[in-house]
């Protein structure tokens, strides 16, 4: 079953006088419970595609279908709401909020997603997710006292605490060493299965492809084999 569908997506940037087409008609379907990896040369348009799919930037032409809605047709407030409630994000850098503890990071994400619930429920939920990423012993730690791998695991926990339908990860392992990268990817794959999410990840690292269900290669703004 498809969760997110991109149809004939085109995106151009205007650089001075020249208009450069970065995405030249991309069709892509992301299926439920699957991790899809975007690979391809630098500058081929992977990040652009991911951010357009995630509603973080507007496209020039085409459709992005989530459920029964076409994201380009929605207002930015509607898109924000979808992002907050149904999308999760892991960035290349963990981008944790420096002044919040691990626990507070997650509780903040639950607030952003407008998750109703009593304090106790929230706390159990936070513990549960942190157990899954193996970080429940650092509940009250600040990001500055965590290692790179630990930060990224907290970032993954933050990305899924609100049980999003889709997880977007742009090079989530790029700042980690090989063992930590494997752990993180393994975690993402396992969580995708257990929460029945749909995951789109960009990666440069061939090794990481062991943990994905579907590989999509991009070249010069097009998908070459799906």
């Amino acid at each position, binding site marked *: 079953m498809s969760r997110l569908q991109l149809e004939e997506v085109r995106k151009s940037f205007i650089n001075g006088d020249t208009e450069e087409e970065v995405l030249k008609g991309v069709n892509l379907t992301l299926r439920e419970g699957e991790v899809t990896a975007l690979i391809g040369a630098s500058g081929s348009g992977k*990040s652009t595609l991911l951010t357009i799919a995630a509603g973080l930037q507007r496209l020039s032409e085409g459709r992005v279908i989530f459920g029964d809605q076409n994201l380009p047709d929605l207002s930015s407030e509607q898109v924000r709401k979808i992002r907050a409630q149904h999308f999760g994000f892991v960035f290349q850098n963990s981008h944790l909020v420096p002044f919040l503890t691990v626990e507070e990071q997650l509780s903040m994400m639950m607030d952003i997603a407008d998750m109703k619930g009593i304090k106790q429920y929230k706390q159990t939920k936070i513990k549960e997710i942190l157990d899954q990423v193996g970080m429940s012993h650092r509940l009250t730690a600040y990001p500055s006292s965590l290692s790179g791998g630990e930060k990224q695991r907290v970032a993954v926990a933050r990305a899924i605490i609100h049980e999003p339908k889709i997880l977007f990860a742009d090079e989530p392992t790029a700042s980690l060493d090989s063992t930590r990268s494997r752990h993180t990817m393994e975690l993402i794959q396992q969580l995708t299965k257990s929460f029945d999410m749909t995951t789109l990840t960009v990666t440069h690292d061939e090794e990481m492809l062991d943990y994905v269900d579907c590989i999509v290669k991009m070249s010069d703004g097009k998908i070459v084999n799906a």
Partner: protein
Amino acid sequence: MAWKEMKKNKAKFLIIGAIVFLISLLTFIISGLANGLSQDNVSLIKNMPEGTFYMSEDSDDSHTQSHIDPQKLNETMKEDENAFAFSLQMGALKTESDNQQSVAFLTSTETSLFTRVDSGEVILDSSLKDQGIKVGDQLSSPQFQGTFEVVDFIHNQRFNHSSVAFINQKDFNHMFRTEEFQIIYSPQINEEISGLKAFTKNEFLSTIPSYQAEQMTLNMIVWFLIVISGMLFSIFFYMMNVQKIGMYGILKALGMRTGDLFKMIWSQMGLLTCTSLIASALISQTFQVFAPDTMPYHLPIATTVQLSVVFFVVGFLGSTISGFQIKKIEPLKAIQQGEA
């Protein structure tokens, strides 16, 4: 969340709070001094209730050249029982030990505002106490043959930067060779008296030459201070938020409402300015109590509140401007900046 950040970054917020505190304290103290100086100039008039001052039409807007026809005075006082007439002239008083002080001699018809003084007696502004003058002292004046006995002191009665000396009308007329009063005062507002020129309290104050020039200088000083410290305020709040623009971008990417970010900025700014302003207001008010009598310092609560409101609004504007910066940023940019 705003609060959590302040708790984590105590040092940073303390520094900003301290800056806000110091700047506002500086402004409060300076305006207290400026205010005190103008109070020192004309507290006699300033302390009178709001009302109307009348001078003769040929007075050229100067009280020393004004003379009120006694008949007119009688009529006015009959009609308006709260009205009274008074006169002011600069002069000097000399103690037995030859210490000469410049004073403003004041005399008036009977009124509840000023105490009655008998001929040969004088009531002085309390600032002259610091010159060693005591109740019972005999003072002479170059303009007066006899001596004045000091019978009492009263607070905050200054005119033309000099202490006011209340004397009896007879002595006054004798000293300055006049029979007529200079000014009629009535607590009523907006009453015309034919043949006399009416002034509001502020208009009357500005007929005093030393007051007008001085007031302009002092106002300039205070307003410059307010403008500059206001700018400093907003710049600090702006800097504080611009530093965090990356983080705000990430929060927006995660789906946080721009409105919630604004709330966060505002609550931090509000908390910071409120605490700092309250602290500096308290200190500047305490200073008022402990300031030596000879130091002209006068900071009414109303002025403090006004200044605080100005600072608050300015801080609010500063943080709102940086808020707009945040409204503009693309979440995407923030993510990519983090990667670079």
